[in-house]
């Protein structure tokens, strides 16, 4: 390997990248858009649900209870009602998606241990419904009101408190995983078109007629993207901490080491795609062929343990699967990089195999 030639290829890639506005925008745009979309869309911690409140007891305790509920941020009071009927009416007309009924005998019920508060939920919105079910953690009430189904009840103050439980597990789980998803998407895509593009533009015939070696060309082409991948990682982590308060329990250095491993794995996969594809369009198709199973099978969207055996085997081949185990271990459980070595090794092995295959597949010949 000739270092001067290697650096010449890297410099050329960076200079071309600097003039490629669309790719530059994608480098930062994809992480930001994805984080915001995924972070909020797959967020079970619903906030700001329009709520109507009918506090018929109007005691110190009932007012405190309502204040607490509002303070949680889960609901935003939109309607002060006088009767449950008024709430069901507002629910039906879609003015509120949640109604809270504090009956006149609230204090007595509270002391007797009977149902003290009713939560009326707009059942047509399954997300709100399931959120409420989870929050209230009580079975559905069979005595559902006629046109508002289902009717939930929170039997006492304690079960209402479960409303406030910060349901942040989803965001906390999603942000580290999102680092992996974004890196999988962008890194494979960027290098997937790298070789094909030069072939399409006619640069390749010149390059292979020079003394440049296969390894110099391949490594020089992907190396700049390692830096870009680390920038993307930083963007997601910073935004995750800022918008969703996702903490890093383990060492930040370990997080970056893990990201680096995934970047390498994806870049070498992209390179292999690039030696295979006949056009940039084909390279993109192949990228999505890899991207979809990665999202679905890696454990990013669905729990890994719940998948059929065959799907699990398949998932073991995907870099994202190993990355998710590593990053969740480090960021959420505070595990060390060394404790999770099998997954780190799997990523390294994947990169080595893909890179070798890409270099072997690439010939300095036109035939």
């Amino acid at each position, binding site marked *: 390997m000739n270092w001067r030639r290697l650096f010449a290829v890297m*410099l050329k890639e960076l*200079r*071309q990248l600097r003039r490629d506005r669309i790719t530059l925008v994608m480098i930062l745009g994809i992480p930001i858009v994805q984080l915001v979309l995924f972070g909020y869309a797959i967020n079970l911690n619903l906030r700001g649900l329009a709520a109507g409140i009918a506090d018929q007891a109007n005691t110190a305790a009932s007012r405190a209870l309502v204040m607490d509920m509002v303070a949680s941020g889960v609901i935003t009071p939109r309607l002060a009602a006088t009767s449950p009927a008024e709430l069901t009416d507002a629910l039906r007309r879609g003015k509120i998606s949640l109604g809270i009924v504090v009956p006149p005998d609230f204090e007595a019920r509270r002391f007797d241990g009977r149902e003290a508060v009713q939560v009326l939920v707009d059942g047509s919105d399954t997300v709100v419904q399931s959120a409420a079910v989870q929050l209230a953690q009580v079975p559905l009430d069979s005595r559902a009101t006629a046109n508002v189904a289902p009717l939930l009840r929170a039997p006492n103050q304690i079960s209402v408190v479960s409303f406030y439980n910060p349901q942040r597990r989803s965001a906390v789980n999603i942000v580290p995983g999102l680092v992996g998803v974004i890196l999988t998407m962008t890194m494979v895509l960027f290098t997937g078109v790298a070789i094909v593009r030069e072939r399409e533009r006619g640069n390749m015939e010149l390059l292979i007629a020079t003394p440049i070696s296969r390894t110099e060309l391949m490594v020089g082409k992907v190396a700049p993207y390692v830096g870009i991948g680390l920038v993307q990682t930083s963007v997601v982590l910073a935004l995750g901490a800022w918008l969703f308060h996702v903490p890093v329990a383990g060492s930040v250095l370990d997080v970056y080491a893990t990201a680096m491993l995934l970047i390498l794995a994806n870049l070498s996969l992209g390179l292999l795609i690039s030696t295979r594809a006949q056009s940039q369009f084909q390279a993109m198709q192949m990228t999505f062929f890899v991207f979809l199973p990665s999202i679905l099978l890696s454990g990013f969207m669905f729990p890994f343990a719940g998948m059929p055996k065959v799907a699990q085997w398949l998932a073991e081949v995907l870099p994202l699967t190993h990355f998710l185990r590593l990053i969740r271990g480090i960021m959420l459980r505070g595990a060390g990089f060394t404790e999770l070595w099998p997954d780190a090794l799997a990523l390294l092995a994947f990169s080595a195999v893909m890179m070798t295959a890409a270099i072997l597949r690439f010939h300095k010949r036109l035939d």
Partner: protein
Amino acid sequence: MNPPPATAAAGEVAIRARGLTRRFGELVAVDRVDLEVPRAHVYGFLGPNGSGKSTTIRMLCGLLTPTAGEIEVLGLKIPQQAEALRLRIGYMTQRFALFEDLTVQENLEFLAAVQGVPRAATRRRIEELLAQFDFADRARQLAGTMSGGQKQRLALAGAVIHKPELLFLDEPTSAVDPESRRDFWEKLFDLADAGTTLLISTHYMDEAERCHRLAILDHGRLVADGTPAQLTGALDGRSLLVHTAQPRRAQQLLTKLTAVRSVAQIGNSLRVLCDEGGAAIEAIRAALGKAGLAAEVEPVAPNLEDVFVASTARHAQAAAQPAA
């Protein structure tokens, strides 16, 4: 036409190929070509599109593996020693192959590093090339924004940045206006004077005439080679010019004669290529007289177009009657 430089010693051969053949499936793109290119010559490949010029050049610089045949370039066995050869050759592709989204300067910097121009000498070499190829005030211009002629000049500058002994040029002037073509050829002869061997493919007759030596390719076969003077000299007496008032009628008449190889109308005259001189001229005069066409027939100096027609037509006839 410049004479071949005196520096080229008689026995020095830059490229030697024997029985060079390349098949793409059923298609025989290059068919048993024998080639010998002397050093410090401008050697031309003349042939129509699809005649195998590009394929031959690609095989000679080790980019394509021959189906059969032997190649020796600058004393190296190709394709086995192609990597060693790449340090000593320059290759200018048919299509502009430099990076359109890099500037002139950046393209040259990249090629200097890749071609192994010593780091200390790089800056001076690039300045030299910028001056030599008239890019001094365009060093910061993106290659993609330049005209066809400028791109070709830049590609040539890039191909010679490491002062190669041998330069392959695949139809370098196909997208360039006549003025730029003349400039471009001046640069080529400068290089040849400095001792560089140039192998250049073209389908322009005027460019072929400028070469020191020439090989004519047709359907993958080498149908003629030699200096332009040798090639045209071999046709002496076979090229005729027929002046007549009714060129279209005369053409129809002459095409049917067995002694006539081809007839092409040039303005109000007909350029006729015969199988042999002497007898043919009489046959043509007789035929025209019999048809009552007043015509004047005079021998003219054969040109490369005649050579091209003569050599490719013979090949076509041979292919038409394989058993004979």
